[in-house]
Protein backbone atom coordinates (compact mmCIF):
# COMPACT_ATOMS: atom_id res chain seq x y z
CA UNK A 1 0.00 0.00 0.00
CA UNK A 2 1.19 3.49 -0.84
CA UNK A 3 1.94 5.60 2.23
CA UNK A 4 -0.25 8.65 2.63
CA UNK A 5 1.72 11.92 2.69
CA UNK A 6 0.86 14.20 5.55
CA UNK A 7 1.86 17.82 6.10
CA UNK A 8 2.04 18.92 9.70
CA UNK A 9 1.50 22.59 10.61
CA UNK A 10 2.47 23.13 14.27
CA UNK A 11 4.43 26.04 15.74
CA UNK A 12 5.64 24.21 18.87
CA UNK A 13 8.68 22.37 17.54
CA UNK A 14 8.61 19.72 20.31
CA UNK A 15 4.97 18.97 19.67
CA UNK A 16 5.68 18.90 15.94
CA UNK A 17 8.46 16.36 16.51
CA UNK A 18 6.12 14.24 18.63
CA UNK A 19 3.42 14.26 15.99
CA UNK A 20 5.91 13.42 13.23
CA UNK A 21 7.25 10.51 15.24
CA UNK A 22 3.76 9.16 15.99
CA UNK A 23 2.65 9.48 12.36
CA UNK A 24 5.68 7.61 11.07
CA UNK A 25 5.02 4.88 13.60
CA UNK A 26 1.46 4.61 12.27
CA UNK A 27 2.87 4.07 8.76
CA UNK A 28 2.46 7.55 7.26
CA UNK A 29 5.03 9.64 5.45
CA UNK A 30 5.45 13.13 6.86
CA UNK A 31 6.12 15.54 4.00
CA UNK A 32 7.26 18.33 6.34
CA UNK A 33 6.50 20.05 9.61
CA UNK A 34 5.85 23.76 9.16
CA UNK A 35 5.25 26.40 11.80
CA UNK A 36 3.04 28.95 10.01
CA UNK A 37 -0.10 29.03 7.90
CA UNK A 38 1.61 31.16 5.25
CA UNK A 39 4.43 28.65 4.78
CA UNK A 40 1.89 25.80 4.59
CA UNK A 41 0.03 27.52 1.73
CA UNK A 42 3.32 28.24 0.01
CA UNK A 43 4.67 24.67 0.31
CA UNK A 44 1.53 22.67 -0.52
CA UNK A 45 2.10 22.76 -4.30
CA UNK A 46 5.64 21.46 -3.71
CA UNK A 47 4.80 18.62 -1.29
CA UNK A 48 1.41 17.79 -2.73
CA UNK A 49 0.24 16.15 0.52
CA UNK A 50 -2.79 13.87 0.86
CA UNK A 51 -3.77 15.53 4.13
CA UNK A 52 -2.87 18.47 6.37
CA UNK A 53 -2.77 18.30 10.18
CA UNK A 54 -3.34 21.87 11.30
CA UNK A 55 -2.81 23.50 14.66
CA UNK A 56 -5.24 26.33 15.32
CA UNK A 57 -2.88 28.74 17.05
CA UNK A 58 0.12 29.48 14.87
CA UNK A 59 3.02 31.88 14.52
CA UNK A 60 2.60 34.56 11.88
CA UNK A 61 -0.37 36.69 10.78
CA UNK A 62 -2.61 33.80 9.94
CA UNK A 63 -4.11 31.32 12.36
CA UNK A 64 -4.84 27.69 11.51
CA UNK A 65 -8.50 28.25 10.72
CA UNK A 66 -7.72 31.00 8.24
CA UNK A 67 -4.98 28.86 6.68
CA UNK A 68 -7.41 25.89 6.38
CA UNK A 69 -9.94 28.15 4.69
CA UNK A 70 -7.37 29.24 2.09
CA UNK A 71 -6.16 25.67 1.57
CA UNK A 72 -9.74 24.54 0.95
CA UNK A 73 -10.23 27.29 -1.64
CA UNK A 74 -6.91 26.77 -3.38
CA UNK A 75 -5.90 23.13 -3.25
CA UNK A 76 -8.74 20.82 -2.33
CA UNK A 77 -6.56 19.03 0.29
CA UNK A 78 -8.39 17.68 3.38
CA UNK A 79 -7.53 19.37 6.67
CA UNK A 80 -7.75 17.99 10.23
CA UNK A 81 -7.47 20.40 13.15
CA UNK A 82 -5.21 19.36 15.95
CA UNK A 83 -5.60 21.75 18.87
CA UNK A 84 -5.81 22.28 22.61
CA UNK A 85 -8.72 24.70 22.13
CA UNK A 86 -12.09 23.05 22.38
CA UNK A 87 -14.15 26.13 23.17
CA UNK A 88 -17.39 26.83 21.29
CA UNK A 89 -16.15 29.94 19.54
CA UNK A 90 -13.11 28.22 18.00
CA UNK A 91 -15.23 25.22 17.09
CA UNK A 92 -17.83 27.42 15.42
CA UNK A 93 -15.15 29.14 13.32
CA UNK A 94 -13.52 25.83 12.45
CA UNK A 95 -16.84 24.24 11.43
CA UNK A 96 -17.47 26.57 8.50
CA UNK A 97 -14.15 25.56 6.92
CA UNK A 98 -15.61 22.02 6.62
CA UNK A 99 -12.67 20.18 8.22
CA UNK A 100 -12.31 16.42 7.90
CA UNK A 101 -11.70 16.07 11.64
CA UNK A 102 -11.06 17.92 14.88
CA UNK A 103 -8.66 16.33 17.38
CA UNK A 104 -8.19 17.76 20.84
CA UNK A 105 -4.78 17.67 22.46
CA UNK A 106 -3.70 15.59 24.25
CA UNK A 107 -4.65 12.70 22.01
CA UNK A 108 -4.04 8.99 21.65
CA UNK A 109 -2.24 7.60 18.57
CA UNK A 110 -5.25 5.40 17.98
CA UNK A 111 -7.52 8.47 17.86
CA UNK A 112 -5.14 10.17 15.42
CA UNK A 113 -5.05 7.08 13.23
CA UNK A 114 -8.86 6.63 12.95
CA UNK A 115 -9.44 10.30 12.28
CA UNK A 116 -6.77 10.39 9.54
CA UNK A 117 -8.05 7.18 7.93
CA UNK A 118 -11.64 8.41 7.93
CA UNK A 119 -10.53 11.73 6.46
CA UNK A 120 -8.47 10.10 3.71
CA UNK A 121 -11.35 7.77 2.83
CA UNK A 122 -13.92 10.58 2.81
CA UNK A 123 -11.63 12.77 0.72
CA UNK A 124 -11.07 9.99 -1.82
CA UNK A 125 -14.80 9.38 -2.08
CA UNK A 126 -15.46 13.04 -2.67
CA UNK A 127 -12.74 13.24 -5.30
CA UNK A 128 -14.20 10.16 -7.06
CA UNK A 129 -17.65 11.64 -6.92
CA UNK A 130 -16.38 14.91 -8.34
CA UNK A 131 -14.55 13.07 -11.10
CA UNK A 132 -17.63 11.05 -11.89
CA UNK A 133 -19.77 14.18 -11.97
CA UNK A 134 -17.23 15.81 -14.23
CA UNK A 135 -17.25 12.76 -16.50
CA UNK A 136 -21.02 12.90 -16.92
CA UNK A 137 -20.99 16.65 -17.38
CA UNK A 138 -18.46 16.21 -20.16
CA UNK A 139 -20.47 13.40 -21.66
CA UNK A 140 -23.61 15.53 -21.69
CA UNK A 141 -21.62 18.36 -23.22
CA UNK A 142 -20.19 16.23 -26.00
CA UNK A 143 -23.50 14.56 -26.84
CA UNK A 144 -25.41 16.24 -29.62
CA UNK A 145 -28.47 15.77 -27.43
CA UNK A 146 -29.69 18.45 -25.06
CA UNK A 147 -30.63 16.92 -21.73
CA UNK A 148 -33.51 18.50 -19.84
CA UNK A 149 -35.81 18.02 -16.92
CA UNK A 150 -39.36 19.04 -17.58
CA UNK A 151 -42.58 19.37 -15.62
CA UNK A 152 -46.27 18.82 -16.24
CA UNK A 153 -46.89 22.55 -16.81
CA UNK A 154 -44.29 22.61 -19.67
CA UNK A 155 -41.72 24.44 -17.56
CA UNK A 156 -38.27 23.04 -18.12
CA UNK A 157 -34.74 23.04 -16.71
CA UNK A 158 -31.59 22.78 -18.81
CA UNK A 159 -28.18 21.73 -17.55
CA UNK A 160 -25.92 23.30 -20.12
CA UNK A 161 -25.86 26.10 -22.66
CA UNK A 162 -26.49 24.01 -25.75
CA UNK A 163 -30.14 25.01 -25.84
CA UNK A 164 -29.08 28.55 -26.73
CA UNK A 165 -27.33 27.38 -29.88
CA UNK A 166 -30.48 25.67 -31.12
CA UNK A 167 -33.25 27.93 -29.87
CA UNK A 168 -31.53 31.28 -29.54
CA UNK A 169 -32.94 31.48 -26.00
CA UNK A 170 -30.57 31.24 -23.03
CA UNK A 171 -30.75 28.38 -20.54
CA UNK A 172 -31.92 30.88 -17.92
CA UNK A 173 -34.90 32.01 -20.02
CA UNK A 174 -36.30 28.54 -19.30
CA UNK A 175 -34.75 27.78 -15.91
CA UNK A 176 -36.09 31.07 -14.52
CA UNK A 177 -39.56 30.18 -15.88
CA UNK A 178 -39.68 33.26 -18.13
CA UNK A 179 -40.39 30.84 -20.95
CA UNK A 180 -42.20 27.56 -21.02
CA UNK A 181 -41.18 24.93 -23.51
CA UNK A 182 -44.62 25.00 -25.13
CA UNK A 183 -44.12 28.72 -25.89
CA UNK A 184 -41.63 27.95 -28.65
CA UNK A 185 -43.24 24.85 -30.19
CA UNK A 186 -44.87 25.60 -33.56
CA UNK A 187 -48.60 25.89 -32.89
CA UNK A 188 -49.62 23.22 -35.39
CA UNK A 189 -47.27 20.71 -33.78
CA UNK A 190 -48.36 21.29 -30.18
CA UNK A 191 -51.55 19.21 -30.21
CA UNK A 192 -49.96 16.12 -31.81
CA UNK A 193 -47.10 16.40 -29.29
CA UNK A 194 -49.59 16.53 -26.41
CA UNK A 195 -51.37 13.46 -27.78
CA UNK A 196 -48.16 11.45 -27.84
CA UNK A 197 -47.46 12.50 -24.25
CA UNK A 198 -50.97 11.54 -23.09
CA UNK A 199 -50.73 8.19 -24.84
CA UNK A 200 -47.36 7.44 -23.26
CA UNK A 201 -48.66 8.38 -19.81
CA UNK A 202 -51.24 5.60 -20.14
CA UNK A 203 -48.64 3.00 -21.11
CA UNK A 204 -44.91 2.70 -20.40
CA UNK A 205 -44.31 6.44 -19.88
CA UNK A 206 -41.55 6.46 -22.51
CA UNK A 207 -42.04 8.43 -25.67
CA UNK A 208 -40.31 9.84 -28.74
CA UNK A 209 -41.93 12.74 -30.52
CA UNK A 210 -40.82 15.04 -33.31
CA UNK A 211 -41.95 18.60 -33.70
CA UNK A 212 -40.84 22.01 -34.85
CA UNK A 213 -39.78 24.90 -32.65
CA UNK A 214 -39.51 28.54 -33.58
CA UNK A 215 -36.20 30.04 -32.51
CA UNK A 216 -35.69 33.53 -31.16
CA UNK A 217 -34.74 34.57 -34.73
CA UNK A 218 -37.98 32.98 -36.04
CA UNK A 219 -36.16 30.10 -37.71
CA UNK A 220 -37.95 26.75 -37.77
CA UNK A 221 -35.94 23.90 -36.26
CA UNK A 222 -37.01 20.27 -36.13
CA UNK A 223 -36.41 18.51 -32.83
CA UNK A 224 -36.71 14.94 -31.76
CA UNK A 225 -37.56 14.55 -28.08
CA UNK A 226 -36.91 11.22 -26.33
CA UNK A 227 -38.26 11.28 -22.80
CA UNK A 228 -39.33 9.32 -19.76
CA UNK A 229 -42.15 10.47 -17.49
CA UNK A 230 -41.43 9.93 -13.81
CA UNK A 231 -44.49 9.64 -11.54
CA UNK A 232 -44.85 9.50 -7.78
CA UNK A 233 -46.55 6.64 -5.97
CA UNK A 234 -49.96 8.29 -6.47
CA UNK A 235 -49.44 8.23 -10.22
CA UNK A 236 -49.00 12.01 -10.46
CA UNK A 237 -46.35 13.39 -12.78
CA UNK A 238 -43.30 14.34 -10.77
CA UNK A 239 -41.06 15.31 -13.66
CA UNK A 240 -40.00 14.37 -17.17
CA UNK A 241 -36.40 13.59 -17.98
CA UNK A 242 -35.29 13.50 -21.58
CA UNK A 243 -33.20 14.85 -24.39
CA UNK A 244 -33.70 16.91 -27.52
CA UNK A 245 -31.91 16.24 -30.76
CA UNK A 246 -31.79 18.66 -33.68
CA UNK A 247 -33.07 16.66 -36.65
CA UNK A 248 -33.55 19.55 -39.07
CA UNK A 249 -30.91 18.22 -41.47
CA UNK A 250 -32.47 14.76 -41.41
CA UNK A 251 -35.92 16.21 -42.04
CA UNK A 252 -34.60 18.26 -44.95
CA UNK A 253 -32.93 15.19 -46.41
CA UNK A 254 -36.13 13.20 -46.00
CA UNK A 255 -38.10 15.91 -47.75
CA UNK A 256 -35.60 16.07 -50.61
CA UNK A 257 -35.70 12.31 -50.97
CA UNK A 258 -39.47 12.25 -50.99
CA UNK A 259 -39.55 14.97 -53.59
CA UNK A 260 -37.02 13.22 -55.80
CA UNK A 261 -38.96 9.99 -55.53
CA UNK A 262 -42.21 11.70 -56.40
CA UNK A 263 -40.63 13.39 -59.39
CA UNK A 264 -39.29 10.08 -60.60
CA UNK A 265 -42.54 8.23 -60.04
CA UNK A 266 -44.27 11.01 -61.93
CA UNK A 267 -41.87 10.86 -64.86
CA UNK A 268 -42.12 7.07 -64.87
CA UNK A 269 -45.88 7.32 -65.02
CA UNK A 270 -45.63 9.89 -67.78
CA UNK A 271 -43.34 7.62 -69.75
CA UNK A 272 -45.85 4.81 -69.28
CA UNK A 273 -48.70 7.02 -70.42
CA UNK A 274 -46.55 8.08 -73.37
CA UNK A 275 -45.91 4.51 -74.42
CA UNK A 276 -49.51 3.59 -74.00
CA UNK A 277 -50.93 6.64 -75.71
CA UNK A 278 -48.66 6.50 -78.75
CA UNK A 279 -49.72 2.87 -79.16
CA UNK A 280 -53.37 3.77 -78.78
CA UNK A 281 -53.01 6.81 -81.00
CA UNK A 282 -51.76 4.75 -83.89
CA UNK A 283 -54.53 2.20 -83.52
CA UNK A 284 -57.26 4.80 -83.16
CA UNK A 285 -56.18 7.43 -85.63
CA UNK A 286 -56.17 4.98 -88.55
CA UNK A 287 -59.84 4.02 -88.15
CA UNK A 288 -60.67 7.69 -87.51
CA UNK A 289 -59.09 8.42 -90.89
CA UNK A 290 -61.32 5.84 -92.51
CA UNK A 291 -64.47 7.10 -90.76
CA UNK A 292 -63.76 10.67 -91.82
CA UNK A 293 -63.10 9.53 -95.38
CA UNK A 294 -66.36 7.55 -95.29
CA UNK A 295 -68.33 10.52 -94.02
CA UNK A 296 -67.06 12.75 -96.81
CA UNK A 297 -67.75 10.00 -99.34
CA UNK A 298 -71.34 9.58 -98.16
CA UNK A 299 -71.92 13.33 -98.04
CA UNK A 300 -71.08 13.52 -101.74
CA UNK A 301 -73.54 10.72 -102.46
CA UNK A 302 -76.41 12.31 -100.57
CA UNK A 303 -78.88 14.63 -102.37
CA UNK A 304 -78.70 18.19 -101.05
CA UNK A 305 -82.37 17.89 -100.10
CA UNK A 306 -81.71 15.17 -97.55
CA UNK A 307 -80.96 17.62 -94.75
CA UNK A 308 -81.35 15.08 -91.91
CA UNK A 309 -78.77 12.72 -93.41
CA UNK A 310 -76.37 15.61 -94.16
CA UNK A 311 -76.71 16.91 -90.61
CA UNK A 312 -75.99 13.37 -89.35
CA UNK A 313 -72.80 13.39 -91.47
CA UNK A 314 -71.77 16.68 -89.87
CA UNK A 315 -72.31 15.22 -86.41
CA UNK A 316 -70.22 12.15 -87.21
CA UNK A 317 -67.46 14.34 -88.58
CA UNK A 318 -67.46 16.53 -85.49
CA UNK A 319 -67.22 13.46 -83.27
CA UNK A 320 -64.29 12.16 -85.27
CA UNK A 321 -62.46 15.45 -84.85
CA UNK A 322 -63.26 15.50 -81.15
CA UNK A 323 -61.81 12.01 -80.69
CA UNK A 324 -58.74 13.15 -82.61
CA UNK A 325 -58.35 16.17 -80.32
CA UNK A 326 -58.40 13.93 -77.26
CA UNK A 327 -55.63 11.80 -78.69
CA UNK A 328 -53.58 14.82 -79.72
CA UNK A 329 -53.90 16.14 -76.20
CA UNK A 330 -52.78 12.85 -74.73
CA UNK A 331 -49.74 12.79 -76.99
CA UNK A 332 -48.79 16.34 -76.18
CA UNK A 333 -49.23 15.72 -72.46
CA UNK A 334 -47.09 12.64 -72.36
CA UNK A 335 -44.37 13.48 -74.81
CA UNK A 336 -41.01 13.18 -73.07
CA UNK A 337 -39.19 16.45 -72.60
CA UNK A 338 -36.43 17.26 -75.00
CA UNK A 339 -33.08 15.63 -74.43
CA UNK A 340 -30.49 18.18 -73.38
CA UNK A 341 -26.93 17.10 -73.85
CA UNK A 342 -24.30 18.87 -71.78
CA UNK A 343 -20.95 18.10 -70.17
CA UNK A 344 -21.59 16.30 -66.87
CA UNK A 345 -19.48 15.30 -63.89
CA UNK A 346 -20.66 11.74 -63.36
CA UNK A 347 -18.99 11.40 -59.96
CA UNK A 348 -20.68 14.53 -58.70
CA UNK A 349 -24.04 13.16 -59.86
CA UNK A 350 -23.37 9.86 -58.07
CA UNK A 351 -22.47 11.73 -54.88
CA UNK A 352 -25.65 13.80 -55.20
CA UNK A 353 -27.76 10.67 -55.49
CA UNK A 354 -25.94 9.12 -52.54
CA UNK A 355 -26.51 12.17 -50.36
CA UNK A 356 -30.21 12.11 -51.19
CA UNK A 357 -30.38 8.57 -49.82
CA UNK A 358 -27.84 8.98 -47.03
CA UNK A 359 -30.27 9.48 -44.20
CA UNK A 360 -32.59 6.71 -45.34
CA UNK A 361 -29.59 4.40 -45.52
CA UNK A 362 -28.33 5.47 -42.09
CA UNK A 363 -31.75 4.85 -40.64
CA UNK A 364 -31.65 1.27 -41.94
CA UNK A 365 -27.99 0.85 -41.03
CA UNK A 366 -26.97 0.51 -44.66
CA UNK A 367 -23.47 1.53 -45.65
CA UNK A 368 -22.87 3.18 -49.03
CA UNK A 369 -19.24 3.11 -50.15
CA UNK A 370 -18.00 4.91 -53.26
CA UNK A 371 -14.72 4.47 -55.05
CA UNK A 372 -14.14 6.34 -58.28
CA UNK A 373 -11.52 6.18 -61.00
CA UNK A 374 -8.80 8.81 -60.78
CA UNK A 375 -8.69 9.14 -64.56
CA UNK A 376 -10.51 12.08 -66.14
CA UNK A 377 -14.04 11.16 -67.21
CA UNK A 378 -15.40 13.49 -69.83
CA UNK A 379 -19.03 12.63 -70.44
CA UNK A 380 -21.72 14.45 -72.34
CA UNK A 381 -25.22 13.47 -71.44
CA UNK A 382 -28.65 14.61 -70.37
CA UNK A 383 -28.01 15.48 -66.74
CA UNK A 384 -31.58 14.97 -65.56
CA UNK A 385 -31.87 11.59 -67.22
CA UNK A 386 -28.56 10.39 -65.80
CA UNK A 387 -29.58 11.64 -62.35
CA UNK A 388 -32.84 9.75 -62.63
CA UNK A 389 -31.05 6.59 -63.75
CA UNK A 390 -28.49 6.72 -60.91
CA UNK A 391 -31.19 7.41 -58.36
CA UNK A 392 -33.24 4.45 -59.61
CA UNK A 393 -30.27 2.10 -59.35
CA UNK A 394 -29.44 3.31 -55.84
CA UNK A 395 -33.02 3.06 -54.60
CA UNK A 396 -33.18 -0.48 -55.95
CA UNK A 397 -29.96 -1.38 -54.16
CA UNK A 398 -31.17 0.17 -50.88
CA UNK A 399 -34.41 -1.76 -51.11
CA UNK A 400 -32.58 -5.00 -51.85
CA UNK A 401 -30.32 -4.98 -48.79
CA UNK A 402 -31.45 -5.52 -45.24
CA UNK A 403 -30.09 -3.72 -42.17
CA UNK A 404 -26.32 -3.86 -42.04
CA UNK A 405 -26.08 -4.20 -45.81
CA UNK A 406 -23.38 -2.61 -47.90
CA UNK A 407 -23.72 -0.89 -51.28
CA UNK A 408 -20.56 -0.35 -53.27
CA UNK A 409 -20.49 2.16 -56.10
CA UNK A 410 -17.42 2.19 -58.30
CA UNK A 411 -16.42 3.72 -61.59
CA UNK A 412 -13.73 2.73 -64.03
CA UNK A 413 -12.82 3.27 -67.65
CA UNK A 414 -12.72 0.44 -70.15
CA UNK A 415 -12.81 -0.12 -73.91
CA UNK A 416 -15.59 -1.92 -75.80
CA UNK A 417 -15.97 -4.19 -77.63
CA UNK A 418 -12.21 -4.73 -77.88
CA UNK A 419 -10.34 -4.02 -74.61
CA UNK A 420 -7.46 -2.41 -76.55
CA UNK A 421 -8.79 -0.83 -79.70
CA UNK A 422 -12.47 -0.37 -78.79
CA UNK A 423 -14.24 2.85 -77.83
CA UNK A 424 -13.69 4.24 -74.35
CA UNK A 425 -16.57 3.86 -71.87
CA UNK A 426 -17.05 4.84 -68.26
CA UNK A 427 -18.59 1.96 -66.35
CA UNK A 428 -20.47 2.70 -63.14
CA UNK A 429 -21.13 -0.35 -61.02
CA UNK A 430 -23.68 -0.46 -58.21
CA UNK A 431 -23.12 -3.57 -56.14
CA UNK A 432 -25.21 -4.68 -53.17
CA UNK A 433 -25.01 -7.65 -50.83
CA UNK A 434 -28.78 -7.95 -50.62
CA UNK A 435 -31.31 -10.63 -51.38
CA UNK A 436 -30.44 -10.97 -55.06
CA UNK A 437 -32.83 -11.69 -57.94
CA UNK A 438 -34.12 -15.12 -58.90
CA UNK A 439 -33.21 -16.41 -62.37
CA UNK A 440 -36.86 -16.29 -63.36
CA UNK A 441 -37.22 -12.64 -62.37
CA UNK A 442 -33.85 -11.66 -63.81
CA UNK A 443 -35.12 -12.37 -67.30
CA UNK A 444 -38.13 -10.08 -66.80
CA UNK A 445 -36.52 -7.33 -64.82
CA UNK A 446 -36.14 -4.91 -67.72
CA UNK A 447 -39.71 -5.31 -68.90
CA UNK A 448 -41.98 -2.34 -68.28
CA UNK A 449 -44.45 -2.75 -65.40
CA UNK A 450 -42.62 -5.79 -64.02
CA UNK A 451 -42.20 -5.32 -60.27
CA UNK A 452 -41.80 -7.39 -57.13
CA UNK A 453 -42.49 -4.29 -55.05
CA UNK A 454 -46.19 -3.67 -55.67
CA UNK A 455 -46.65 -3.38 -51.91
CA UNK A 456 -44.00 -0.65 -51.77
CA UNK A 457 -45.71 1.24 -54.59
CA UNK A 458 -43.19 0.10 -57.17
CA UNK A 459 -44.28 1.04 -60.67
CA UNK A 460 -42.19 -1.56 -62.43
CA UNK A 461 -40.72 1.19 -64.57
CA UNK A 462 -37.55 2.19 -62.71
CA UNK A 463 -35.18 -0.24 -64.40
CA UNK A 464 -37.06 -0.12 -67.69
CA UNK A 465 -36.62 3.65 -67.84
CA UNK A 466 -33.02 3.40 -66.64
CA UNK A 467 -32.37 1.03 -69.53
CA UNK A 468 -34.07 3.45 -71.95
CA UNK A 469 -31.93 6.29 -70.64
CA UNK A 470 -28.76 4.25 -71.07
CA UNK A 471 -29.90 3.28 -74.59
CA UNK A 472 -30.59 6.94 -75.39
CA UNK A 473 -26.97 7.67 -74.55
CA UNK A 474 -25.70 4.77 -76.68
CA UNK A 475 -24.46 2.96 -73.60
CA UNK A 476 -25.34 -0.42 -72.16
CA UNK A 477 -26.72 -1.79 -68.94
CA UNK A 478 -25.73 -5.15 -67.53
CA UNK A 479 -27.26 -6.91 -64.53
CA UNK A 480 -25.72 -9.84 -62.71
CA UNK A 481 -27.36 -11.34 -59.65
CA UNK A 482 -27.19 -14.34 -57.43
CA UNK A 483 -29.94 -15.10 -54.95
CA UNK A 484 -28.83 -14.64 -51.38
CA UNK A 485 -25.57 -13.01 -52.43
CA UNK A 486 -26.49 -9.75 -54.08
CA UNK A 487 -26.84 -7.87 -57.31
CA UNK A 488 -24.45 -5.97 -59.52
CA UNK A 489 -25.73 -3.43 -62.02
CA UNK A 490 -23.15 -2.03 -64.43
CA UNK A 491 -23.92 0.96 -66.62
CA UNK A 492 -21.41 1.83 -69.33
CA UNK A 493 -21.60 5.22 -71.02
CA UNK A 494 -19.44 6.19 -73.99
CA UNK A 495 -16.91 8.99 -73.42
CA UNK A 496 -16.75 11.89 -75.87
Amino acid at each position, binding site marked *: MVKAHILVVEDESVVAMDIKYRLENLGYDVSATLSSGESAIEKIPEFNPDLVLMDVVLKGQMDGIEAAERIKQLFDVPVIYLTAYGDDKTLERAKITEPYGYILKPFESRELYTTIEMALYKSKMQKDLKASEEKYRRLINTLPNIVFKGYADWSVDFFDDKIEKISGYAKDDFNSRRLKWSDIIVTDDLEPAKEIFAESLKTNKLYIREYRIKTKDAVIVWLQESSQIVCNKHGEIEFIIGAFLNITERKKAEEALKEAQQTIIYSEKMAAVGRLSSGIAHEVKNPLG*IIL*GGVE*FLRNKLPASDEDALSAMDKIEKSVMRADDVIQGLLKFSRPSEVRIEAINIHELINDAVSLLKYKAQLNNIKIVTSFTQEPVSLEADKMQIEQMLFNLLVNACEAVSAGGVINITSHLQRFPDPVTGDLFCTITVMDNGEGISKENLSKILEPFFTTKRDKKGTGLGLYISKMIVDNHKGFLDIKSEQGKGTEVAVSLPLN
Partner: protein
Amino acid sequence: MKRILVIDDEKDFCFFLKQNLESSGDFAVEVCSNALEGFTQVRKLHPDMVLLDVRMPGMGGGDIATAIKENQETKDIPFAFITALKEQFNLKNKELSVSGELFITKPVKIKELVRIIDTYTT
Protein backbone atom coordinates in the same frame (compact mmCIF):
# COMPACT_ATOMS: atom_id res chain seq x y z
CA MET B 1 -56.26 16.94 -113.92
CA LYS B 2 -53.62 15.98 -111.33
CA ARG B 3 -52.57 12.36 -111.08
CA ILE B 4 -52.05 11.16 -107.49
CA LEU B 5 -50.57 7.84 -106.42
CA VAL B 6 -51.53 6.60 -102.94
CA ILE B 7 -49.36 3.88 -101.39
CA ASP B 8 -51.02 2.65 -98.17
CA ASP B 9 -51.89 -0.82 -96.90
CA GLU B 10 -55.04 0.51 -95.20
CA LYS B 11 -57.38 -0.41 -98.08
CA ASP B 12 -60.56 1.16 -96.72
CA PHE B 13 -58.73 4.44 -96.16
CA CYS B 14 -57.43 4.34 -99.76
CA PHE B 15 -60.90 3.61 -101.10
CA PHE B 16 -62.46 6.69 -99.54
CA LEU B 17 -59.43 8.83 -100.36
CA LYS B 18 -59.72 7.90 -104.04
CA GLN B 19 -63.49 8.43 -104.12
CA ASN B 20 -63.35 11.76 -102.30
CA LEU B 21 -60.46 13.22 -104.30
CA GLU B 22 -61.86 12.10 -107.64
CA SER B 23 -65.37 13.40 -106.87
CA SER B 24 -63.99 16.93 -106.98
CA GLY B 25 -63.17 16.36 -110.64
CA ASP B 26 -59.61 17.71 -110.34
CA PHE B 27 -57.83 14.46 -109.53
CA ALA B 28 -57.16 11.00 -110.93
CA VAL B 29 -56.09 8.66 -108.13
CA GLU B 30 -54.22 5.35 -108.35
CA VAL B 31 -53.99 3.18 -105.25
CA CYS B 32 -51.37 0.64 -104.32
CA SER B 33 -51.32 -1.31 -101.04
CA ASN B 34 -47.80 -2.69 -101.27
CA ALA B 35 -44.63 -0.67 -100.93
CA LEU B 36 -42.48 -2.51 -103.41
CA GLU B 37 -45.17 -2.52 -106.06
CA GLY B 38 -45.78 1.12 -105.15
CA PHE B 39 -42.33 2.19 -106.27
CA THR B 40 -42.74 0.35 -109.60
CA GLN B 41 -45.95 2.32 -110.06
CA VAL B 42 -44.17 5.60 -109.28
CA ARG B 43 -41.72 4.97 -112.12
CA LYS B 44 -44.40 3.70 -114.48
CA LEU B 45 -47.04 6.36 -113.86
CA HIS B 46 -44.80 9.30 -113.02
CA PRO B 47 -47.67 10.90 -111.00
CA ASP B 48 -47.93 14.57 -110.06
CA MET B 49 -47.70 13.62 -106.39
CA VAL B 50 -47.24 10.50 -104.22
CA LEU B 51 -48.98 10.00 -100.86
CA LEU B 52 -47.12 7.48 -98.70
CA ASP B 53 -48.08 5.58 -95.58
CA VAL B 54 -45.16 5.37 -93.13
CA ARG B 55 -45.75 1.97 -91.58
CA MET B 56 -46.43 -0.86 -93.96
CA PRO B 57 -45.58 -4.52 -93.83
CA GLY B 58 -42.14 -5.02 -95.35
CA MET B 59 -40.72 -1.91 -96.95
CA GLY B 60 -42.08 1.28 -95.37
CA GLY B 61 -42.93 4.72 -96.65
CA GLY B 62 -39.50 5.99 -95.65
CA ASP B 63 -37.82 3.44 -97.92
CA ILE B 64 -39.99 4.40 -100.88
CA ALA B 65 -39.27 8.07 -100.24
CA THR B 66 -35.52 7.38 -100.31
CA ALA B 67 -35.90 5.38 -103.51
CA ILE B 68 -37.91 8.20 -105.14
CA LYS B 69 -35.29 10.79 -104.19
CA GLU B 70 -32.36 8.67 -105.33
CA ASN B 71 -33.80 7.71 -108.69
CA GLN B 72 -33.02 10.13 -111.52
CA GLU B 73 -36.38 9.55 -113.20
CA THR B 74 -38.45 10.13 -110.06
CA LYS B 75 -36.41 12.55 -107.96
CA ASP B 76 -38.52 15.55 -108.87
CA ILE B 77 -41.86 13.96 -108.00
CA PRO B 78 -43.23 15.57 -104.84
CA PHE B 79 -44.37 13.19 -102.12
CA ALA B 80 -46.00 13.42 -98.71
CA PHE B 81 -46.27 10.99 -95.82
CA ILE B 82 -49.76 10.30 -94.69
CA THR B 83 -49.64 8.71 -91.27
CA ALA B 84 -51.40 8.25 -87.95
CA LEU B 85 -48.35 9.23 -85.91
CA LYS B 86 -45.95 11.86 -87.14
CA GLU B 87 -44.25 11.61 -83.70
CA GLN B 88 -42.35 8.65 -85.03
CA PHE B 89 -40.30 11.13 -86.96
CA ASN B 90 -39.66 13.62 -84.15
CA LEU B 91 -41.27 16.47 -85.99
CA LYS B 92 -40.92 20.05 -84.90
CA ASN B 93 -42.93 21.69 -87.63
CA LYS B 94 -46.59 20.84 -88.00
CA GLU B 95 -46.24 19.55 -91.52
CA LEU B 96 -42.57 19.40 -92.35
CA SER B 97 -40.07 17.00 -90.87
CA VAL B 98 -36.52 18.08 -90.01
CA SER B 99 -35.26 16.96 -93.38
CA GLY B 100 -38.05 18.80 -95.17
CA GLU B 101 -40.46 15.96 -95.83
CA LEU B 102 -44.13 16.73 -95.90
CA PHE B 103 -46.37 15.09 -93.32
CA ILE B 104 -50.13 14.74 -93.21
CA THR B 105 -51.68 13.16 -90.12
CA LYS B 106 -54.78 10.98 -90.16
CA PRO B 107 -57.63 11.72 -89.85
CA VAL B 108 -57.44 14.42 -92.52
CA LYS B 109 -60.30 16.37 -94.11
CA ILE B 110 -60.42 16.25 -97.88
CA LYS B 111 -60.40 20.06 -98.17
CA GLU B 112 -57.20 20.20 -96.14
CA LEU B 113 -55.61 17.46 -98.22
CA VAL B 114 -56.53 19.24 -101.45
CA ARG B 115 -54.99 22.45 -100.15
CA ILE B 116 -51.72 20.66 -99.36
CA ILE B 117 -51.61 18.85 -102.73
CA ASP B 118 -52.26 22.11 -104.56
CA THR B 119 -49.42 23.78 -102.63
CA TYR B 120 -46.86 21.17 -103.57
CA THR B 121 -47.86 20.49 -107.17
CA THR B 122 -47.50 23.23 -109.70
